[in-house]
């Protein structure tokens, strides 16, 4: 029988690891900016590859979850929200809110935004 506690906790850790790995892309982009115009144009071409777009979608999903789960932990650290019923409710909130944020961000990035960096 699965406990929601185990799932929310391990997902927070997994998304944290994925996000850390995703930072490599951000660092690459920033280094390219700092290295001048030709390096940036090259990086822009690389970062616009279709394969990477799939990775951006994954990163948006992990970011959305990790953000809300992290805030939940911050609130817990103040000593609030630790009763059993409260924890169940906040777990449901984190899952729903992160799904909504992910859908919103993904829609914005892929349609409204239109362009890779």
């Amino acid at each position: 029988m699965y406990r929601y506690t185990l799932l929310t906790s391990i997902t927070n850790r997994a998304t944290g690891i994925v996000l850390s790995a995703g930072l490599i892309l951000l660092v690459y982009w920033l280094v390219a900016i700092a290295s001048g115009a030709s390096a940036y144009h090259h990086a822009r071409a690389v970062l616009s590859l279709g394969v990477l777009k799939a990775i951006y979608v994954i990163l948006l999903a992990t970011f959305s979850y990790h953000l809300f789960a992290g805030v939940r932990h911050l609130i817990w650290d103040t000593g609030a929200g630790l009763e059993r019923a409260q924890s169940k409710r906040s777990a449901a909130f984190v899952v729903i809110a992160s799904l909504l944020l992910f859908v919103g961000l993904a829609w914005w990035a892929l349609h409204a935004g239109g362009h890779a960096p």
Partner: protein
Amino acid sequence: MAQFRLPANSRIRKGTIHRAPAGARKVRTFRIYRFDPTSGENPRVDTFELDLAGCGPMVLDALIQIKGTLDSSLTFRRSCREGICGSCAMNIDGINRLACTTAMEDLGGGDVRIYPLPHMPVIKDLVPDLTNFYAQYASVKPWLVAETPPPPDRERLQSKPEQEKIDRPAACILCACCSTACPSYWWNSDRFLGPAALLAAYRWIIDSRDEATGERLDALEDPFRLYRCHTIMNCTDVCPKDLNPAKAIAEIKRMLVERQS
């Protein structure tokens, strides 16, 4: 290197099947972890088809019935059968709980799977070795420490609000459901005190009569003893007495931060 498989001598084999007698009307199947260290054999999971006619409603009733009628070698701890001694804590259908306060009816329809408390050395069958767990409890000095002598003519009195603070934490029965549900405790039980011992520590830290609050906090200010808690919340979720070790630990962490400023 992380270990992902159980050691070769701990892997679980298929066990024996005890069929229900012909004519049994109310049969429920139990899959129970068996281990006998003296046999030299690996653990196994035995299947018992128990006729519940004439058996009490709780999982503990079924275990006693199985021991009495199907296999007298089945070994488990039990004493009070009313959730106050904490002896019959075990993993029932994936959740740590007391066999005596868990009604079979509440377990859904399928087979009832019974294992010892997770990630503890097993003495026999459903009996875990709790030596380390008790030693950790003792290490938080679960008794009143006071320099001031008590009044000569009466007890050390507390106000009602002062008593209410320790009311719930003091209701812990040390069944170990919480600590053995905690992944941090599974992986660091040699250095992390675990939710039960920390709840006990908290109960004495906030006791208005105790005068060793500073020393108690000093003893917990350690990256492992206290801070291996990552607020996974399994402890609070499984506690059969509805206590809240996670909140107690968060409060201890908060007190440690507050006394720095």
